[in-house]
């Protein structure tokens, strides 16, 4: 028997760490003891463990992940008893290897010997939901099965990490088996979350949907008096939604429906998919809208607006879920693509702050938050953070004054002003540097009153 420590670095994680949960199930079945922890906890570092597993997620959290690995390295007899795996470790293993001695495991745990000689593949093991209660962290959703029917994807989109993480499109264990075993071991769960990258690409789609229905997730099925829902969390491929597929999907309580409107060229299939799905009765959509890749601010605004327009036209509710692109190998979050700039990205972040990242389909809300025209949109995202975040508090005085000054700037001056704002943001010597931009003095005062960063 061995003492196993599972560590999730204390980055913001929404979903439970499924890899660690599978590793937990595997070790417990061997008779080992398993402890799960988030982040760096001194009392766990100061005692010996036979093996420590550290998960990784976003590449821009790799520095924190490295720190966590180093932190626990004294708790094992040999640094290679620390196993590091997960998404970021698969995307950028050399970044970890160059910085800390440990065992980096790349890819899915779907082959033998990945966790040491003689270990079985564990990708299909039922994750151990019981470890989640040990940490003071609320994963969401907290009462769902996390399963997947397929792995990989048939597309090779340039912006997506899936082709590297899961190069082959293939099937996993049957869903009925996954759900049955999880229920038997860890109790029934209210909802079902499917993490497939592109479930509609499955030629066995009909069977998969039938399995979902038969597992207690048909339309109107309830548990403890509450209706159950199914969430294809990674979204479904608009291009694959034929009328037949829409009808098939209508046999399960999908909530919300998730599509993606990542670039302009998707418009036709996107509109068609929503129309087909609305036609079979779906009303609630939460759709991913990527920006900061090859797109422009105009395209982004247009795509968000399309959702408002479609919602009204079809009598449905399409919530936008903007997704900011970060290159899959980036260890920082600051990436800015060609058509974007620092201030604009920051402005969008400020708008989304109050809405948990979502864009409501309510036209009044949309006009107020994102502007009723593209020009107004650009103006809003150029404003100082607090004027965006606390729209109502500032709109009649400070923001109005700011607008007056800003509107006087020529097109070229506005571009220059955006560059100045980005420079000042990263400046160590802001107060002095501000003096160099006399032309923008009054405007800059709105951003940094007295040369200081105001409270938001």
């Amino acid at each position, binding site marked *: *028997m*061995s*003492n196993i420590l599972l560590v999730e670095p204390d980055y913001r994680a929404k979903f439970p760490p499924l890899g660690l949960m599978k590793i937990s199930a595997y070790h417990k079945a061997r008779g*080992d*003891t*398993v*402890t799960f*922890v988030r982040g760096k906890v001194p*009392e*766990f570092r*100061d*005692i*010996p463990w*036979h093996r420590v597993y550290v998960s990784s997620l976003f590449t821009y959290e790799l520095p924190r992940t490295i720190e966590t690995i180093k932190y626990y390295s004294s708790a094992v*007899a040999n640094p290679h008893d620390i196993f590091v795996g997960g998404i970021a470790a698969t995307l950028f293993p050399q970044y970890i290897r160059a910085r800390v001695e440990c065992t980096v495991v790349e890819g899915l745990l779907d082959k033998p010997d990945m966790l040491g000689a003689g270990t079985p593949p564990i990708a299909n093991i039922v994750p151990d939901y019981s470890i989640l*209660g*040990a*940490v003071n962290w609320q994963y969401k959703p907290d009462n769902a099965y996390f399963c997947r029917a397929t792995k990989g994807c048939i597309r090779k989109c340039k912006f997506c990490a899936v082709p590297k993480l899961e190069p082959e499109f293939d099937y996993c264990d049957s869903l009925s088996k996954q759900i049955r075993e999880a229920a038997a071991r860890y109790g029934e769960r209210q909802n079902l979350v499917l993490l497939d990258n592109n479930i509609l690409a499955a030629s066995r789609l009909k069977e998969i949907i039938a399995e979902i229905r038969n597992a207690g997730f048909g339309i109107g099925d309830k548990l403890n008096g509450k209706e159950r829902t199914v969430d294809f969390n990674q979204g479904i491929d608009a291009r694959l939604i034929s009328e037949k597929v829409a009808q098939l999907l209508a046999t399960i309580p999908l909530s919300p429906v998730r599509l993606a409107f990542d670039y302009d060229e998707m418009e036709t299939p996107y509109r068609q998919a929503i129309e087909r799905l609305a036609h079979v009765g779906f009303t609630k959509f939460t759709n991913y809208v990527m920006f900061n890749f090859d797109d422009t601010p105009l395209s982004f605004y247009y795509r968000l607006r399309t959702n408002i327009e479609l919602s009204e036209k079809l009598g449905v509710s399409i919530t936008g879920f903007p997704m900011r692109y970060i290159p899959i190998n980036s260890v920082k979050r600051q990436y800015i693509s060609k058509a974007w700039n620092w201030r604009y990205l920051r402005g969008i972040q400020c708008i989304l702050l109050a809405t948990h990242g979502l864009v409501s389909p309510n036209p009044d809300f949309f006009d107020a938050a994102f502007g009723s025209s593209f020009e107004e949109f650009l103006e809003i995202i150029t404003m100082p953070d607090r004027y965006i975040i606390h729209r109502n508090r500032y709109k009649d005085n400070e923001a109005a004054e700011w607008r007056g000054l800003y509107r006087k700037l020529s097109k070229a001056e506005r571009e220059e002003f955006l560059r100045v704002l980005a420079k000042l943001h990263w400046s160590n010597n802001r107060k002095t540097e501000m003096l160099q931009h006399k032309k923008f003095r009054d405007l800059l005062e709105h951003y940094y009153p007295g040369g200081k960063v105001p409270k938001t």
Partner: protein
Amino acid sequence: MSHKPFIGTYVLETLTTGMYTNPLDTLREFIQNAADSIRTAEEEHLIREGAGRIEVTLNPTERIVKVRDNGVGIPSQEVANRLLNIGTSTKTIEKDAGFRGIGRLAGIAYCKALHFRTSAVGENTTSEVKIDCDGIRNTFSPELRQVSRLEEAIANYSSVTREPCDTDSHFFEVTMNGILEQVPIFLNWRAVEGYLSQVAPVKYDAQRFIFATKIQEWVKQYGLSIPTVTLIIKTPEIEREVFKPYKSRYGTRRSKGIKYELDIEDVCFYPEVITPESTFWLWYGKTQLLGMIDDTMVAGLRLRKNNIAIGGPDRVRELFEEVSRSYGRFNSWYIGEIHIISPHAIPNARRDGFEDTGIWPEIKKELIGFVEARAKEAYTASGARNQPTQKVITSAKRVIDKVEKTLAIGIASAKERDNLLKQVDQERKRVTDALKHRKNQEDVKTIEPYLERLNKIRASLKNSKPRLKKFRSDLGRKQRKVISEVLEVLFEVLDEVNFEKAKAAILARFQVEESKTGS
């Protein structure tokens, strides 16, 4: 007419708080009972050998400690007799670890209520005994004028109930409910794990202690084994198996400012072979004997019976002291375990030593002989001439490093230089002495280069002028001179450690970057 004595509840105080030095000894008593019960279950083939499992569950929020085993359990007819009678254990002195029938009462002193639940195999009942510890403790609180009769108090404050369960289950579970405020240690899993790892009959951690297998195999060739159970400690946050704390590498305690690294190079056994007449066997770690081991969890040989600790390292320290009063310290130069296997050596009621009857005096005599040899080895190694090679070179290296560093940044004053020279000379003498007494060519080869280095560094020290180097180029001659003089003054008034600190701080400001990183 014979008098019927009145036994008051004060006796319980002696049997609980009065009995054990460490509140956690209560857990040792529970674990010992659990281990005995598991042994029986193994003998009766209820579980296979090695499948015994004890779970210690701590819940700090609810203030509960639970110890559960999968041993034979107690049949329901016997529950009341076995759990509520005092000092009448059915166990045998020779075979079982616990035999007096008082250990489990220790819990009364530290919680509000003590519950025992158990079921024996083949019966479809679980019995539960509840003891109201608050109630019982009140009967012997000193404010109370009237003392109750012991039997009455126990009868009044306990209950026995039964409920159905399936026939196959066999377990014993003791729960301390409402751990009292004054003993928070019961709810501190690290303290509990640390304690149990030293005391409970658990396995060696073979991943950390590479000689674990060697010890087991050595014992096995004589048809013996080290009895172990799987002991799990659980809280809402953690789950760990408890292992003995031995590992293969340690540090020594700081002595004259130096801490040595210490490898366990091998394990040695005594006696060389175990015969049917042997009353004990022991292993100890072979090291370079560089000093006291800096880990209180393992330092010092310890006694065990049935693989459960009998007292701590102090028991063996006393044996070293019997050889010579000043040798007591040498016990902590060693790690190891003395397993008493004679059934005739009886642990005392506190379990911190053995009764001075039966075979113990004989064992003790033999142990003193063994300990004497260890003490002599350690004594020899601690003497200047016979210092272990690693100790000689560690010390020489330390002085060489220090002088090299100082030479790199410059010497503040003639006095500082003379002081360093003195240290180098001392070290040269130590190394020369050590070389003179070395017979092993290997050692000579290891040490010799250090003498050369010391000689070399002495020469450069002698030739160096007291002058600081690598001053920043913007400093004028006068400024440089002032800095040097300030350092000279500081050398006079500060002790070595503080002077080094001050010098480093001053030079960090006035020297060029590269020498800062270089030093």
